[in-house]
């Protein structure tokens, strides 16, 4: 019950803040424009591709690249959206109000995480409507689109957990946003050197988020990739809970 109360409170606070609306308007406008460009390019090359027996279709050339652009925007959007969830409360002095309501740290963290994740899933759903409105007019590869969507959901869930964790450790929302951006970029690029050296396996590649997202965007669903994302989410939320619990201890 208290989990739902925290989620509702955070959801309400997200909805009345201009930042969430500005981010949604700007990013959806950008994605809409890119969707138009991708669609134009797809239609222009249709005749040439007709000669290829197994050529890329609408899903490969429009839907998945659009989701790829959303993934890139998420690197900036998620830290901005999640920066205030705990750091803002700490700064305003409202965090003790939640402690004094008898809500355990784990539920505060989870409640806030679910609110941020809800906003991100709505953002993803609105983006997905762009290729889906053309489903009746083109041939969609549903399997590949589902796989890419699962990948995006997992990625957004992981970025939200990192954002909430950084917010729990920071004293100011801007520091939380910068921290989340750095951690996310580090996780994405951690294997860049190894890749340049021609190494495609090993622990360093396993650590990188791109290693686990790219197969999903290509339509390959592997339980190992899903487990990687789940582990990252659990680890980030556990760290946030621990930090919040320490807040209550330290005062």
């Amino acid at each position, binding site marked *: 019950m208290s989990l739902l109360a925290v989620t509702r409170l955070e959801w309400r606070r997200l909805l*009345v803040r201009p930042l969430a609306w500005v981010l949604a308007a700007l990013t959806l406008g950008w994605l809409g424009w890119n969707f138009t460009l991708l669609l134009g390019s797809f239609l222009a090359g249709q005749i040439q591709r007709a000669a290829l027996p197994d050529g890329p279709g609408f899903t490969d050339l429009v839907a998945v690249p659009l989701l790829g652009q959303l993934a890139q925007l998420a690197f900036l959007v998620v830290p901005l959206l999640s920066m205030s969830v705990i750091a803002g409360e700490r700064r305003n002095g409202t965090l*003790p*109000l939640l402690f004094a*309501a008898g809500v355990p740290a784990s539920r505060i963290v989870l409640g806030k995480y679910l609110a941020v994740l809800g906003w991100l899933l709505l953002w993803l759903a609105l983006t997905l409507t762009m290729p889906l409105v053309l489903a009746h007019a083109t041939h969609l590869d549903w399997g590949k689109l589902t796989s890419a969507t699962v990948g995006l959901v997992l990625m957004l869930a992981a970025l939200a957990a990192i954002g909430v964790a950084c917010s729990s450790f920071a004293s100011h929302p801007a520091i939380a946003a910068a921290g989340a951006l750095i951690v996310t970029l580090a996780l994405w690029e951690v294997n860049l050197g190894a890749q340049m050296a021609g190494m495609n396996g090993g622990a360093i590649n396993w650590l990188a988020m791109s290693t686990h997202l790219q197969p999903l965007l290509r339509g390959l669903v592997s339980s190992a990739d899903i487990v990687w994302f789940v582990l990252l989410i659990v680890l980030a939320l556990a760290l946030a809970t621990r930090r919040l619990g320490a807040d209550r201890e330290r*005062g």
Partner: protein
Amino acid sequence: MTSIIPASPKTVLQLDRLSRRRAGRQAVQDLSLALRSGEVMGLLGVNGAGKSTTLSMIAGALRPDSGGIRLNGEDFLEHPELARTLIGWLPERAPVWAELTVNEHLDAHGRLRGLNGSALRAARSAIIERLELQPLARRLAGVLSQGQRQRLGLACALLHRPALLVLDEPANALDPVQVAGLRALIREQAAAGTAVILSTHLLAEVTAVCDRVAILHEGTLRHDGAVHADDHAALEKTFFEIAMNGSHQPARAA
């Protein structure tokens, strides 16, 4: 807001050798107190005496380093969820979620305290009416004056009809009319069986509404006794003796 006054007041709050270090110093040390239902206790002390730290621990916002807190006979430190229904807390400076309206604030607090649906709506209407918050109901908390925030904080603390009301300097930023209203409200809550503990710097506040006064100095309890409306001079003497010397000499019977 009708409640039956308990026939025999029971102990709502019991502090047992409560201690807490804060900012590198002992903020509260070996504090033991008990508060019965319907009793109003004033917590006095100079700045840094440990009043807010004590009230934060009682409210469940801060964990003590050692000692125990019992609420209605149950171990509060083992069961922090007791705060949800039993305690109403008005922290110092009444922090608010600036982007929510007064109505939304009350709803959020009510849900956090386990109220929902028609029970929440009824409690919200009652407290808005009692604290005369109707003109502010749709206003954002972020644009309220400090006095209005204080009233909102008080409304949030009272919304779920707690058994223990913890008020940290509740008269802060209130005008004289509102202070009189606050005193009436505290007496009304006590008459309904709510135990009230409040911190203040105003001795007149204590003599006006409190049945008992506890004086803290450097984190320890230096005085705990009954107080009456006509005790102002005696209370002032006791307070200044403790503030200046750290202790006071109780008056001896002739």
